[in-house]
């Protein structure tokens, strides 16, 4: 039936037209989303990079335009937004990620571009020049550290090491940890208790912070240090009840109970150790070499600060893994892969990489850039010596592809506070963690197929 000209709109027809309008609107919105990373803009190609503000500064973005003629448009890193963009078929051209945990997760879901062919023809990033830490970005469909390369780390640290403030040690009358031999985790915690200063229920000085990069990687690293594995061989399960994993869990819960440093039951409002360590309110900070970037820029703090090897468990083995390896990867459906690769080469092998290496914000991921690491001052030479000795103990601790690190972290946060407050035994906690984490891993395994 055709409506008569001039007749009033019927409700049914109006709603039908509205629905059509809505559908058109949806399509337009989708179209807008698709244009995010489309080709050429202004004076050259445009590459969309999803990153955090600290990853790439506005100056660097301008520098990219000058150096390689590519305009970089940044989108603030947000996993939900990333998933939305990928679902729309319009992902960013480059995405920041934590190699240690994101590489197996995304590679197993087949959304990452295999970068082996790009590396093979690159004159900037040569395979022989890549530090072994970049293997965190490899995944063969089963195990991390093998198979195709899906990304690259911009710098790295051995994240079980710790920095300490000699002035706070001296003030508390605690002997300095040795710089070449590791202390045990038990000694570390004992020192932290002696270094903590409290007044009227407030913590004036934190004895030590030990939280790793993210708790699940920390627990996997601690378990490795105790001589075991947190994950089963096929990465489809965790087991906190093995003697090694239980030892690791017990230590971390003791750390939380002792309230010697930030934890989920005593969070640091700064959200990271840097400002508290810089304010001389933290005697030990479990941060790797990268914290030197902050420390070196503070002329008062730098001479007081020392780097120490990763602790060991009594009877355990000496391991000093990288828990992050943060860098970039390219989505399989990226629209501008060639330009994105040009940015990739520039970011990891040219000006920005040299600037990062000389700033002390982590160890360069290209062996050829190692000589640029800061070693002008005596304290810098001292730190570098400790770091170079520690590299002998570097290892990759593979992470599961079946769950995001955030999901395991959230489940730990859900269960662990009761144990840290003394309302739950470590054995009971281990059982609960096995239950909730294995349920999550099971769901993930089903979905990966």
């Amino acid at each position, binding site marked *: 039936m055709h409506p*008569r*000209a*001039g*007749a*009033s*709109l019927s409700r049914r027809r*109006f*709603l039908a037209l*509205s*629905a059509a*309008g*809505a559908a058109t*609107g*949806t399509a337009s919105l989708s179209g807008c989303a698709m244009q995010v990373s489309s080709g050429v803009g202004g004076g050259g190609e445009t590459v969309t990079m999803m990153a955090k503000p600290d990853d790439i500064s506005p100056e660097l973005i301008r520098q990219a335009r000058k150096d390689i003629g590519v305009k970089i448009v940044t989108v603030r890193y947000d*996993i*939900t937004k990333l*998933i*939305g963009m*990928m*679902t729309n078929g319009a992902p960013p051209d480059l995405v920041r990620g934590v190699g240690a945990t994101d590489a197996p997760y*995304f590679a197993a*879901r*087949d*959304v990452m571009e295999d970068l082996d062919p790009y590396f093979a023809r690159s004159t900037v990033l040569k395979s022989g020049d890549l530090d072994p830490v970049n293997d965190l970005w490899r995944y063969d469909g089963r195990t991390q550290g093998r198979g195709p390369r899906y990304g690259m780390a911009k710098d790295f640290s051995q994240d079980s090491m710790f920095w300490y403030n000699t002035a706070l040690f001296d003030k508390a009358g605690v002997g300095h940890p040795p710089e070449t031999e590791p202390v045990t985790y038990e000694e570390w915690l004992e020192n932290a208790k002696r270094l903590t200063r409290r007044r*009227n*229920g*407030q*913590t*004036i000085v934190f004895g030590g912070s030990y939280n790793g990069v*993210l708790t699940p990687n920390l627990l996997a690293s601690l378990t490795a240090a105790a001589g075991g594995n947190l994950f089963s061989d096929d990465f489809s399960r965790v087991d906190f009840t093995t003697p090694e994993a239980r030892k690791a869990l017990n230590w971390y819960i003791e750390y939380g109970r002792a309230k010697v440093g930030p934890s*989920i*039951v*005593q*969070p*640091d*409002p700064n*959200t990271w150790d840097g400002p508290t360590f810089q304010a001389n309110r933290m005697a030990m900070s479990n941060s790797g070499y990268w914290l030197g970037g902050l420390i070196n820029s503070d002329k008062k703090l730098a001479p007081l600060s020392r780097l120490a090897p990763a602790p060991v468990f009594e009877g355990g083995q000496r391991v000093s893994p990288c828990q992050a390896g943060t860098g970039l990867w390219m989505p399989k459906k990226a629209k501008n892969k060639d330009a994105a690769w040009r940015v990739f080469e520039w970011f990891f092998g040219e000006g920005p990489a040299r600037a990062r290496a000389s700033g002390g914000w982590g160890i360069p991921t290209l062996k050829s850039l190692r000589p640029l690491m800061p070693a002008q001052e005596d304290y810098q030479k001292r730190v570098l010596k400790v770091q170079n000795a520690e590299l002998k103990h570097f290892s990759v601790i593979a992470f599961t592809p079946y769950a*995001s690190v*955030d*999901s395991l*972290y*959230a*489940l730990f*946060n*859900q269960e662990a*506070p009761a144990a840290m407050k003394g309302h739950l035994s470590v054995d009971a906690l281990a059982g609960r963690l096995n239950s909730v984490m294995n349920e*999550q891993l099971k*769901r*993930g395994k*089903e*979905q*990966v*197929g």
Partner: protein
Amino acid sequence: MTVEQISVTGRSGPPAASTARPAPAERPKISMTGRRHRAFYLFTAPWIIGFLLLTIVPMAYALWLSFTTYDGISPHWRYVGLGNYTELFSDPQTWNSLGRTGLFALTSVPLSIIAGLGLAVLVNRPIKARGLFRTLLYLPAVVPPVGVGLTFKALFDQNSGAANGVVTLFGLDALGWLADPYARYVLLMSVLWAAGNVMIISLAGLQDVPRELHEAARIDGASAWRTFRSITVPLLSPVLLFQTVTGVIASVQTIMPLLLSPDGTTAGVTALPQSNYLYMMHVFSQYFALGRYGYASALLWVLFVLILIVTGLIFKFTSGVVFYNVDPEAKK
């Protein structure tokens, strides 16, 4: 261009040409009802299109998601029928968080209405600098929730917050305000911080109360409290009902606990103090921390239905006590 203008233009040509042309087809006349309908639909169209695009489509999408195991990225998701709904009702976290949310609504809504109404009564009095007080009291309500969260976190931090500065002045030990059992009070304070919203609406309602009624009550010897209870409150009842309904919906949907969380990361939501782990926190953790889009969508649909039921119950139980100041003949 109007119909009249078209007619004038039609007459402006030379007479010969005018007579040679066939007579223009007469435009169908639109009845007054038709015009009204057209105007109604044209004016409401932006809202209706927005409603369809931004409410109905996402709700339908969420409903579809709620029958799947979709996580946004994995390739092998599947339909589970009512599986997510069955799981939801046997999940203790759902019930516990729902119970806390109900308690929070029962506490925060009356408190903010009482506080806002009290402030409205105060700034409705003929006092000096009344405009300034109204502005100052309303100002916190315009601070975005993120700003409120950051400010409260700084104020109530155990080691460096101003609140513990005051506590320790009295020789007491600092309190862990952002942890249990105090976190719930900080959350309530953050809600009361925005009582200016209730104040401004109540103030408008108060100014609508006829002055003659108050004067008559005063002549009859009624006390200020009696006047407030028997005249002001009944006349304000539609406003109070509105604030109750919107307050309950807002309190059920609040994400303020997340903004007060010392660990602002996605995974940090599950580390919230138990007392502040409300229903929306459970939804957030399932969506964004655990990536369970299907299950979280089911949680949201259940919340939607619950809000409808609660709103209906509020209307039902208040129908006898809400006084609508309208002409009863107007409907006829």
